[in-house]
């Protein structure tokens, strides 16, 4: 991270011009990134060329007031223990009172948070994190390496039920090498390690939260005042916070759990809350017409998919898989299922929201003739069973029916079997050879592939068992040279796209709404509600 700044002196002349344009507001940050990448500048590097305030939106932050969010996704079963978090309410509340070692910016660059800097050995196996000094927990204790080590160990030990267990598994040892220094050694080279530690489960807690995991004490800009699972959660500004210029503008933040979509909109409309998540695509146009309400849609990494098991007949035949991949009308699906709030997929689980996205891969189009050619070549002719359910993703039943009609055009006979929502994730997904599903994306490409596409992955829901793919994934994971890494990711994407079992018709946008007096909103493809930072980064304009 720090080393890269030394290269700033040798700036590309075109890049210098771009940077100037960006600072004067003639280029959006995203455009700047895109063009900088075109010049061959690695993304993390390009992002650091711009000062933080270059893209300030609607004015300067104002302090004070109670910022209220009405959110879907909270339940009375929720807990304050970060290891147990699965829902977006816990994610958003957690990002307000807790902090991880690192963050990842909307552009995919690494941003220091509780770690001030990070350095790796040349083989990308030993990582040294220098911690920020003088950071206080809400209980007055100072954060030191002992707390960090205890936290990371709690999430990675054998008895852990943490949602972050999957990403902690590759770690060999975690040790405090100084009061303010933590050294992590991984089993295999992993160039993504500092990105992985930005996971929202890995909030640093005093003593690792071992004694009382659900105490709700962290180092974040807000401290927990009230926690009523499934009802309401309140936190007030923490006076001893180390970074008050960037986070924590409202005096108090409040999340009310409103799981009913209509109730969310009426709460926003009547001014009871300032921001809501999950506006349904079919009502966006109507909501947009309301005065004082702003719709924010963010193209993220979340995706709606139809995984096929590559090892189960008839899907063990690549021609049949290709036939189905060509027999789906992606544009139509984005238009009808997402009402345009999304983008088409290309049968590999990565899009432009990921760093090092391979953008030169041609888009797969709806081609009934080609589908029919592959279908005939596969020799299969009985109906293909697709299982779907309302819980697979919003509109999954309709999407399956559209897919069925598309297939009919290509002469492929598809049968839809509707499954009960109850038990769908334990009985159908990852068990049946062809079904509807979703993925919410992962912080890095490697993480996405390691979660679901390498042979040893727990959730290899396409049963994609390929040694050559695993070897590429391993090489890319340990590769510190970004250009070489991009090439490897391009090869991996092509393999999944042309030989894998994933049909990925669309990436869905996050659609959220705010009142017009909310300042500081900026899209973040990492997740909902500015990847959970909305409450700590937004402010109320008077």
């Amino acid at each position, binding site marked *: 991270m720090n080393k890269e700044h030394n290269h700033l002196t040798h700036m590309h002349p075109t890049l210098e011009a771009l940077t100037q344009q960006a600072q004067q507001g003639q280029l959006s940050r995203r455009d700047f990134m895109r063009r900088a990448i075109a010049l061959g500048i690695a993304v993390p590097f390009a992002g650091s060329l711009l000062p933080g305030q270059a893209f300030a939106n609607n004015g300067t932050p104002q302090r004070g007031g109670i910022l209220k969010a*009405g959110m879907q996704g909270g*339940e*009375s*079963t*929720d*807990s304050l223990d970060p290891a*147990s978090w*699965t829902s977006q309410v816990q994610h958003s509340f957690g990002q307000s009172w807790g902090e991880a070692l690192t963050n990842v910016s909307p552009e995919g660059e690494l941003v220091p948070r509780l770690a001030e800097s990070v350095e790796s050995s040349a083989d990308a196996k030993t990582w040294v994190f220098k911690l920020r000094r003088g950071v206080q927990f809400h209980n007055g204790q100072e954060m030191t390496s002992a707390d960090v080590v205890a936290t990371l160990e709690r999430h990675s030990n*054998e*008895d*852990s*039920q*943490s*949602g972050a*267990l*999957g990403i902690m598994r590759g770690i060999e040892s975690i040790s405090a090498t100084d009061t303010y220094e933590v050294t992590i050694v991984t089993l295999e080279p992993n160039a993504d390690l500092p990105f992985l530690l930005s996971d929202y489960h890995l909030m640093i807690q005093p003593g690792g939260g071992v004694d009382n995991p659900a105490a709700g004490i962290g180092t974040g800009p807000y401290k927990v005042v*009230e926690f*009523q*699972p*499934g*009802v*309401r959660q309140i936190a007030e500004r923490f006076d001893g916070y180390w970074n008050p210029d960037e986070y924590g503008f409202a005096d108090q933040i409040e999340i*009310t*759990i*409103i*799981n*009913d979509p*209509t*109730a969310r909109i*009426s*709460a926003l*409309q*009547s*001014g*009871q*809350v300032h921001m809501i998540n999950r506006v349904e695509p079919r009502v966006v146009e109507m909501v947009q017409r309301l005065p004082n309400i702003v719709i924010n849609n963010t193209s993220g990494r979340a995706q709606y998919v139809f995984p096929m098991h590559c090892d189960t007949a008839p899907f063990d035949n690549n021609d049949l898989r290709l036939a189905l991949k060509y027999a789906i009308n992606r544009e139509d699906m984005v238009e009808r299922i997402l009402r345009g709030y999304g983008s088409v997929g290309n049968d590999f689980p990565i899009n432009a929201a990921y760093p090092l996205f391979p953008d030169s891969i041609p888009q797969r189009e709806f081609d009934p003739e080609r589908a029919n050619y592959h279908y005939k070549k596969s020799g299969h002719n009985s109906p293909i069973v697709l299982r779907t359910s309302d819980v697979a993703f919003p509109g999954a039943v309709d999407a399956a029916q559209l897919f069925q009609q598309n297939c009919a055009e290509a002469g492929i006979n598809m049968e839809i079997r509707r499954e*009960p929502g*109850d*038990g769908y*994730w*334990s*009985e159908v*997904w990852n068990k049946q050879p062809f079904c509807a599903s979703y993925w919410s994306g992962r912080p890095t490409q490697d993480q996405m592939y390691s979660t679901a596409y390498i042979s040893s992955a*727990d959730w290899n829901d396409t049963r994609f068992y390929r040694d050559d793919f695993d070897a590429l994934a391993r090489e890319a994971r340990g590769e510190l040279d970004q250009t070489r890494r991009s090439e490897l990711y391009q090869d991996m994407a092509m393999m999944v796209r042309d030989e894998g079992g994933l049909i990925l018709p669309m990436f869905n946008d996050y659609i959220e709404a705010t009142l017009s007096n909310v300042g500081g909103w900026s899209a973040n493809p990492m997740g909902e509600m500015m990847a959970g930072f909305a409450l700590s980064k937004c402010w109320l304009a008077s």
Partner: protein
Amino acid sequence: MNTFVLKLIAQRLALGLLLLLAVSVLIFVGTQLLPGDVAQSILGQSATPEAVENLRRELGLDQPAWARYFDWLGGILQGDLGTALSNRQDIGQSLWGRAGNTLFLAFWTAVVAVPLAILLGLVAVRYQSRWPDRVISGTTLTAISLPEFFIGYLLIYVFAVKFSWFPSVSTVHSGMSLGERLHAIALPAATLTLVILAHMMRMTRAAILNVMQSPYIETAELKGLGTFRIIARHAFPNAIAPVVNVVMLNLAFLIVGVVVVEVIFVYPGMGQYLIDHVSKRDVPVVQAVGLIFAAVYIGLNMLADIIAIVTNPRLRHPK
């Protein structure tokens, strides 16, 4: 009070308890038949096999069902509802808060709805087949014909969004004064009142009209008493039994059947609490809430029976 009535009441109580025990068995067996795996549901789509295995072991899901039933029943008899599987919180603690909210809403709805329904019923009888009767019957029947979520959204649109008189989100929490609480629950209480009004009003009207055919009412009329006095003093007491029954049924509905209204108004009651835990396969909570719902239903119906017995002179003074 004579021994015959006391015996009848004692019989009802014993029957009620027996029924509750049978229900507890049914609830337990029913929850065992639910598909899916608790550990898997708690951890969601992002669970790893190790985490699932660790959780299953910790939750004691490997013990036989009958052993768990007696453990559970024994705990309940000592007032211990157990610990929620999903968030390790004491069920009693979180449930009483929720139950308190549900009872609060049910109580204030009943305070408005029951007298209003009976009064409207009396008025409808007094002006039978004339315009007040028609208006009362027409409006209450319209209200009961509309689905409750529609009434809820309608009230939100008019009173929360258009006029901003009442909040659309009825979240109540500790630290709110009684006045604030009543203000917060105004819209859900109004919705529920509209939902249950017609049922009780119609029953009051029908029961009293039935009695109005009796010869002693004619005598009262010939005596020269006013119509409303006859209805209130002479006809109504003899119509109490069916009215009490339907009132109790509606009160039970206010406690066990208001999930939809709770969801629309974001009210933290028991229904929402139950739904959350059903979807997470949190069996102890589902069992506890199921048992409480059954107890409420049985208890209120038993109360209706007892009131009917006590107010019936033929039972109080048997030949």
